[in-house]
């Protein structure tokens, strides 16, 4: 079953452009890191720097810098590209918000999303929250299982969780060297 999914997603990808379904879903992942928020933000803050810490990312092309309108094209190791644009980037507050421009069901089985990443103090260390809102891959009434709300939740939560695990390893690994 699993093996047939990528081919199926690829075939359906063309039909989903600009789809915004009526039933949004949540994604919410957090991680605690043994480093102060400034040190964590130095790694995670640069919008185009996701390739330095997210283990699923193969390549990033970024334009526009860390400001509203900045864009990153994130190519994943498994294939597929996420084009994401910054809505807001607040360095002093250690947070940025962005949204997907064009869906790529090969990358993630969702038709649109917005997300916010925030670093806050947590005891002697930091807490990083990466949360957002997305719509399933097929926003019609009878989505295939691979493009359902559940499939979207699984993929988005996994992508965010993988990223935060990678971020933690990157920051804590760097701190102990």
């Amino acid at each position: 079953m699993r093996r047939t999914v990528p081919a199926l997603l690829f075939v359906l990808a063309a039909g989903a452009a600009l789809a915004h379904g009526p039933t949004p879903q949540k994604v919410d992942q957090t991680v605690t890191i043994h480093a102060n928020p400034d040190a964590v933000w130095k790694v995670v803050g640069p919008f185009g720097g996701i390739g330095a810490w997210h283990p699923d990312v193969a390549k990033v092309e970024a334009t526009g810098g860390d400001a509203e309108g900045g864009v990153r094209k994130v190519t994943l190791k498994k294939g597929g590209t996420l084009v994401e644009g910054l809505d807001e980037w607040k360095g002093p507050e250690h947070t940025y918000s962005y949204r997907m421009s064009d869906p790529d069901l090969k990358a993630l089985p969702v038709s649109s999303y917005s997300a916010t990443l925030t670093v806050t103090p947590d005891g002697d260390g930091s807490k990083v929250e990466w949360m957002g809102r997305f719509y399933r891959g097929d926003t019609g009434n009878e989505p295939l299982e691979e493009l359902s709300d559940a499939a979207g939740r699984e993929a988005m939560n996994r992508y965010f969780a993988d990223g935060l695990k990678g971020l933690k390893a990157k920051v804590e690994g760097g701190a102990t060297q």
Partner: protein
Amino acid sequence: MNAAGTIRRGFVQRMRRRAMLAIALVTVSGPVGSAGAQDLAVVSQQGARVSRIAAGAVRAALAVTASPAVVAADASGRLYISHPDGHAITVVAPDGSARHLPFAGQAFGLAVEPDGRAIYVGDWSGNRVVRIAPSDGAVEGEVAVGRDPAHLTLGEDGRLYVAERESRSVGVIDTRRMVRVAALSVGDGPFALAYDPIRRRLYVANVRSNDMTVIDTAGGRILATVPAGPSPYGVAVSADGARIVVTDQHAASVSVINADALSITATVPVGKYPEGVVIRGDRAYVANWFSDDIAIVDLTSLTTVGRIPVAEGPRSIVAVPPAAAASTLAGRATPGIAR
């Protein structure tokens, strides 16, 4: 106590008893008396609940079919709830009893005549608005509209407005004939609507262009485009028409807009991913979809003065007659309430 009070108290007790029987899950917390001028009804999508709020607390929560999206109310306090994935509309009577109307499409936006005689349903992926009968859901008429119809709202003279999200337009429907008589170009991604009968204006929240279009409905023209915050997803206008509140979904805030100056007077932080909003008196009530609560925004001090926890994923919020007085309002058309 006078006769009317006795009858009303009897009704409340009867209603409570019936609600306990009819409702799959009831939670009561906080004060149960002093309902205030209006109650609120909130629909939580993931939690699949409609919660009744009075005097700043949830009085009851009714379990409904999965993934409810939009709630509307008629003047008698009856609630109408759309289920985009469920091919259905739920109708909840003031006593808490619920029934389902079938809908052959992806029901999202809803508007109801104040007297409850007709329900208008936006079919999101069907690009049409359908008029159905409240008794059995029978289709009484339909009209093709722009792409991805989002929220609907009733105006005057039998006009129904439709936010046509992917067509960047607002459709104007003559409900007597079910004909789309006009379309007005607005911003990018029009989603939510609010009608002000005093200034005869329609306010349109545009999700992607981060602004609000102001339509002069009498003249059928665009009056202004007002910049709002990131991703305006909800809009409400005060009863006197003086203030407009827009939810800025991607900034966890609301923009308070002066209707005369047509500019933002304040930005007030609320919860995460705010969506639906309603204004009662000096307060705006904001459904925070991600935070699972309702923010109470004081429009005088321009601060959030309270948060009311509700079931997961509150999206849509509407004012309804207080439960205790619902029976006395039955049959009295109060135009302000259906919006």
